[in-house]
């Protein structure tokens, strides 16, 4: 667990080389993905063509890609921030659900409030929900009891059950007997959307937090201290850095961001809380953070590419009868390629 928590920071190289490397990674990943589809008896070229034409080919497709990017940006930063101090937060999915849960509670309880009060309240509750869910593994890790990787993973299986319990129980809408869900949120609880698309205010919020993340890790004392802790915890402790505080703080802030992803989904997209509303945004955020090495620009690029793949996955599901989970194969192969660091991608010898 003392390994460096990230693959090489690809974007540290000059931009042209970095672009070439990303391109190579994706060419290799798509080639392997195509091979698997071909073995499964599907037409790989058609699948890949469908993926791109349905997402980048039209204005609407592109707007849907941006819609998918919003929660991914949040959940990626939710993983990247703790990774600065060497923590592995795989609990984005659970934190996202708990954030959506508390945000929905606020939306249902304070529905009489005007939007300028209700939306910030929902965002705050979303952050509280995610942060509280992350506090449990953070506390256990800070006390040296249990490693955060396994606890955050296990808690991902608990959070959706709690949400489902509320949807089937106290919050169930009496209007819709067929699909269990809460009643529709009032318009004041909906994040405004732009230009007649589904792109909503959450995008600006997500970009703002990404910018904040960049400023913090690059220009503040906190960023420097986090790098010191991530590099050598023992030395950092001897130099008097408050390790425990950092462990709890970064995990809770990460959880808060994942919770915000949940809030922006229920408020901006669904307008109600329904079971299983996330197709694994939390897990995808983890992959994005790792693929990008935790760099802000990398997170932006990888979120976009992941959103393209994920949106394309919906099309593959419809056109080729492939299960949605297949997009995980493409994401996993991309990660394999980066983790394996074939010689054409690496610069010099590294351990």
């Amino acid at each position, binding site marked *: *667990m*003392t390994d460096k*928590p990230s693959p090489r920071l690809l974007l540290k190289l000059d931009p042209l080389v970095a672009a070439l490397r990303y391109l190579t990674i994706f060419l290799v990943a798509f080639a392997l993905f195509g091979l698997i589809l071909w073995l499964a008896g599907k037409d790989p070229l058609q699948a890949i063509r469908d993926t791109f034409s349905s997402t980048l080919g039209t204005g609407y497709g592109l707007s849907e890609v941006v819609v998918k990017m919003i929660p991914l940006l949040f959940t990626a930063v939710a993983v990247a921030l703790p990774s600065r101090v060497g923590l592995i937060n795989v609990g984005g999915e659970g934190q996202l659900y708990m954030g959506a849960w508390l945000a929905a509670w606020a939306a249902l309880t304070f529905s009489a409030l005007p939007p300028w009060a209700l939306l910030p309240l929902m965002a705050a509750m979303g952050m509280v929900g995610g942060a509280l869910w992350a506090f449990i593994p953070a506390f256990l890790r800070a006390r040296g009891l249990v490693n955060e990787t396994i606890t955050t*993973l*296990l808690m991902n299986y*608990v959070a959706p059950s709690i949400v489902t319990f509320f949807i089937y*129980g106290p919050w169930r809408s009496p209007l819709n007997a067929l699909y269990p869900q809460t009643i529709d949120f009032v318009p004041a609880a909906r994040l405004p959307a732009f230009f007649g698309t589904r792109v909503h205010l959450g995008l600006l919020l997500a970009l703002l937090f990404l910018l904040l993340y960049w400023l913090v890790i690059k220009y503040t004392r906190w960023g420097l201290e986090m790098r010191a802790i991530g590099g050598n915890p023992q030395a950092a402790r001897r130099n008097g850095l408050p390790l425990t505080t950092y462990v709890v703080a970064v995990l809770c802030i990460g959880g808060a961001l994942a919770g915000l992803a949940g809030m922006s989904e229920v408020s901006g997209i669904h307008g109600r809380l329904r079971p299983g509303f996330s197709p694994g945004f939390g897990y995808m955020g983890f*992959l994005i953070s790792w693929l990008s090495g935790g760099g802000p620009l990398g997170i932006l690029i990888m979120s976009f590419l992941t959103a393209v793949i994920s949106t394309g996955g919906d099309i593959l599901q419809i056109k080729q009868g492939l299960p949605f989970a297949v997009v995980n194969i493409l994401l*996993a192969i991309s990660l394999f390629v980066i983790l394996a660091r074939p010689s054409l991608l690496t610069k010099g010898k590294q351990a």
Partner: protein
Amino acid sequence: MSVLSILGVISSAIFSGASLLYATLGEILDERAGVVDLGLEGVMLVSAATGFGVTVRTGNPYLGVLAAMLAGGLMNLLFAYLVVTRRANQLASGLALMFFGFGMSALIGRPYVGSRINGLPRYSLPGLSDLPPLISSQFRFDLLIYLALPTAILIGWLLFRTRWGLGLRAVGENPNAAFAAGRDPRWIRYQALFLGGALAGLGAAHLSIAWTMTWGEYMTAGRGFIAVALVIFSKWHPLRAVAGALLFGGAVAFQLLLQASGIPISPFLLDTIPYVLTLLVLIAWGGTRKHAAPASLGRVYLGAEQ
């Protein structure tokens, strides 16, 4: 509540615990060789789908079990290539393997959703055949359940009583020293991961072929992670893993018992019991775990030349 329903609950606890025991044993082998495999969940999913598919195709559940084992072993070989040969970070590679398993199992299992199979044949416990048929019918188990405990003993024997096990544990404690003593850490880790994957595959096969006799996406529902947690609980010892599996089986039984008893608790909250219990067990055992963990666990073996 009748005696019969209680017996039924115990019976399903045994079914639930058996698949977890195999997976935990597999993870113990991996970790004893110094490799954390967080991809176990993905390995189990691919094995469950493959085993089920082969059973549907051939009509022979035992062939399905073999295919599941092979699929599990191959999945872990892919993992071994990353973490042993390419020296990638084990936790990240494991999670990448998990995602790969999510997708691959969905792709493999797609044609078999809703298919019906004849699962592994079940045999009565010897000596119970005299009981009333209604009761003895609750205690008819398949071969994999009868073999679960012997497998745990066998793995314990392999690890602690054979030269091979000594080498494997040496690699897990200190690969450089093991190399100096003439072992090949990389080759040994490959072996451990293949065997561990095959064992996890066996557990997954029991889940899809013997117990539920269905395939559904994400059907393992976190069993792979619970197995990783139970390895810590069992202090990396195969026989203590039996206790861990019984505990988990007990949690499932408790959950079913509450459901059957008609106490008005939401099934969605009951679903969380195994995970919450696993978390509590981890917390209770957390303080002492460091003494038992293989010393090189999670570290990359760089090779002797460096």
